[in-house]
């Protein structure tokens, strides 16, 4: 299974390119899942679908999915709060659980909801599709989605080291008191949780760095260009490989070498002509991209 991310500035054409790419893949009989990670979804608008369902089958090989991040966030907080109430029964005596319930409505956290969703998708849908294409949110949020697992792993590493020292110290004390005659290592719920989080986030970090094919969609607009330059720099800082640049709204009359302009010479550039999006409403775009990426359905 291959995964593609189309990133870039808002309005650069990420959703259109991702949709066109997904459509093309399905025309080549690849079982494709097209997912919008942008809370302001517009995949259904692109495919002219008027439905409240978050998942939709476009043709026999293409499905689209616009996850409801608010619902994911709400479900997550709800589940965690149930666990929390289990260990803080005394809170109910003071009606404090009402305050905990308000956590469910706390603003933000869309980036974490996206990470939760991504982890689930990679766990459950990998075997069902040949290709998963992600239409991403604008640069700022996408960089947070890319960087959160790495930052978390750094912190979790430090916490695990400290926690291990605590568990060892506890072991020594119970050893002296002869409470633990067999010198068995006791279970530590916090250490177990930290190890589980470490495994999850390192898995996601490994996925970003080694499996994900990340493309930057750019056009000749000055602001889009500057943001793309910053995005490429940040991807480099995060050690995420840039698979290519999609030069959107390309005009044959202008001789622009997008890779040089974006400061990443030698990166493959895929050109999408300006008029092709308007003319070919059935999204028969990016045939070149498919061929150049060596995607053939045998």
């Amino acid at each position, binding site marked *: 299974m291959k995964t593609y991310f189309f990133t870039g500035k808002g309005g650069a054409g990420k959703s259109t390119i991702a949709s066109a790419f997904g459509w093309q893949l399905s025309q080549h009989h690849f079982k494709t899942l097209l997912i919008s990670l942008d809370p302001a979804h517009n995949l259904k608008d692109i495919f002219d679908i008027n439905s409240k369902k978050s998942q939709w089958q476009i043709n026999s090989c293409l499905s689209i999915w616009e996850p409801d991040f608010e619902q994911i966030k709400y479900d997550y907080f709800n589940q*965690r709060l149930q*666990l*929390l109430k*289990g*260990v*803080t029964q005394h809170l109910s005596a003071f009606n404090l659980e009402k305050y905990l319930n308000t956590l469910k409505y706390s603003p933000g*956290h869309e980036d*974490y909801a996206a990470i939760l969703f991504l982890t689930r998708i990679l766990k459950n849908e990998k075997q069902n599709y040949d290709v998963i294409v992600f239409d991403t949110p604008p640069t700022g949020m996408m960089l947070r989605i890319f960087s*959160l697992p790495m*930052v*978390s792993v750094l*912190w*979790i590493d*430090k*916490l695990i080291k*400290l*926690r291990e*020292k*605590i568990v060892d*110290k*506890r072991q*020594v*004390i119970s050893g*002296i*008191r*002869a409470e633990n005659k067999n010198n068995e290592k006791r279970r530590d*719920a*916090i250490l177990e*949780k*930290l190890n589980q*989080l470490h495994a999850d986030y390192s898995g996601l970090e490994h996925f970003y760095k080694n499996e994900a094919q990340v493309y930057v969609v750019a056009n000749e607009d000055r602001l889009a260009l500057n943001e793309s330059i910053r995005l490429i720099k940040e991807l480099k800082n995060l050690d995420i490989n840039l698979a290519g640049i999609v030069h959107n709204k390309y005009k044959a009359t202008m001789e622009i070498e997008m890779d040089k302009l974006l400061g990443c010479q030698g990166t493959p550039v895929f050109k999408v002509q300006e008029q092709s999006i308007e003319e070919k409403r059935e999204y028969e775009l990016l045939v070149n991209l498919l061929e150049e990426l060596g995607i053939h359905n045998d």
Partner: protein
Amino acid sequence: MKIKFLASFKNILKDFDRHNKSQATDLLEYELEEMEYVFATLVYSSFIGIPGIPEFVAFELLPCMETELATFEQKNENADDMLADLFSKLSFE
């Protein structure tokens, strides 16, 4: 009678041993408590206005942190009189 006496003597020795062990571990326990406090401070540093770990990692750990949070709260209550706290732990009179 003799057996009863021996049993009581054995119990006294056991108590003596337990007391010694408890004294020996007091300092270690204090150190452990401090480490747990540091751990809780790192995890919930945002409670006291210090930027720290990503908040969803803190939230994930919350259901397992009841003991640490109790230590955190107690330590913060005694924060004004740290010397008294230290002396009482080390049994200075």
